[in-house]
């Protein structure tokens, strides 16, 4: 099986300002079969994410305009469902904890090998897919529970013609009952 045909390929937004690092990451991602877009600044990344809706975001923490943390914060505020992965040279606990608080699913310490990038990205995309599936199941369950809890649908609607038909039906039924009584009365 060729690498490009592997499962789990997705739309990946790479946010990296140093051209060499971006070029290396883009090459690795392309050989994994991902559709990649690259942004060199936070502002550019936010604009791309708005119109492209990536499945995963690889974000460098040190960008020339805003920090990688700020990019994640803004993406989250806009309701992005992308799996966010932080690229950092500093794997200190504080950095990692803050990344997780801002919504990162994982982090990669630079420099990194292709295998590390692939495993992290595959896990992140799988995690994202499972979350989406869970949300869909929850929605289905909610619909089912709501339908089960509401009263059964009425036979006739609430529109005027339905009410008229219902009234005519009732009159016919009453007339038939009266007719039966009359016939029965004459019978006696």
């Amino acid at each position, binding site marked *: 099986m060729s690498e490009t045909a592997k499962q789990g390929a997705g739309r990946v937004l790479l946010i990296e*300002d*140093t*051209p*060499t*690092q971006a*070029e*290396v990451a883009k*090459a*690795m991602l392309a*050989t994994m079969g991902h559709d990649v877009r690259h942004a060199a600044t936070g502002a550019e990344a936010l604009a791309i994410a708005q119109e492209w809706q990536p499945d995963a975001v690889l974000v460098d923490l*040190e960008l020339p305009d805003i920090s990688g943390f700020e990019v994640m914060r803004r993406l989250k505020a806009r309701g992005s469902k992308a799996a966010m992965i932080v690229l950092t*040279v500093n794997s200190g606990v504080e950095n990692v904890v803050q990344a997780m608080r801002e919504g990162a699913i994982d982090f990669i310490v*630079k*420099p990194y*090998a*292709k295998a590390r990038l692939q495993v992290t990205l595959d896990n992140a995309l799988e995690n994202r897919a499972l979350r989406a599936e869970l949300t869909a199941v929850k929605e289905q369950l909610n619909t089912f529970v709501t339908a089960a809890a509401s009263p059964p649908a009425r036979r006739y609607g609430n529109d005027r013609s339905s009410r008229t038909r219902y009234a005519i039906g009732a009159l016919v039924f009453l007339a038939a009952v009266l007719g039966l009584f009359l016939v029965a009365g004459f019978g006696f």
Partner: protein
Amino acid sequence: MPRSVTPGRRVIDLGWVIMRPLFTVSAIDPSIAGQLADDLPPEIFRRIIATFEADLARLTGELTQSAGEGDLDGYLRAAHSLAGAAAAVGARRLEVEARTAMDPAQPVSPSEVLPRLSAESRSALQELHQLAGN
């Protein structure tokens, strides 16, 4: 008149020629640069080297300019980017020099650092080109 060389001296010189590569630390980390060369198509690897070369020219220029203007922020930013670029292609000695340049705990004057960065840049590029078969 040429200086006479004793047989003992010849043996030592020959031994050094043979053993020297074992004591010389390569400018690039084979576990990163070699891996890139193995994982990526040759033309992509060559493109990465070209991008790295352009980054080196730009960033060493920025370092020199920032040092000349006394712009510490610009100097540190350029050193940080240089370290990142070097690390990405496994240019480990260059990365160490760039990190030294931005380390506040070991202040080194730009006049000392810049020539070392240039020398390491040349070594790294030379080894990367060899790896790419250029």
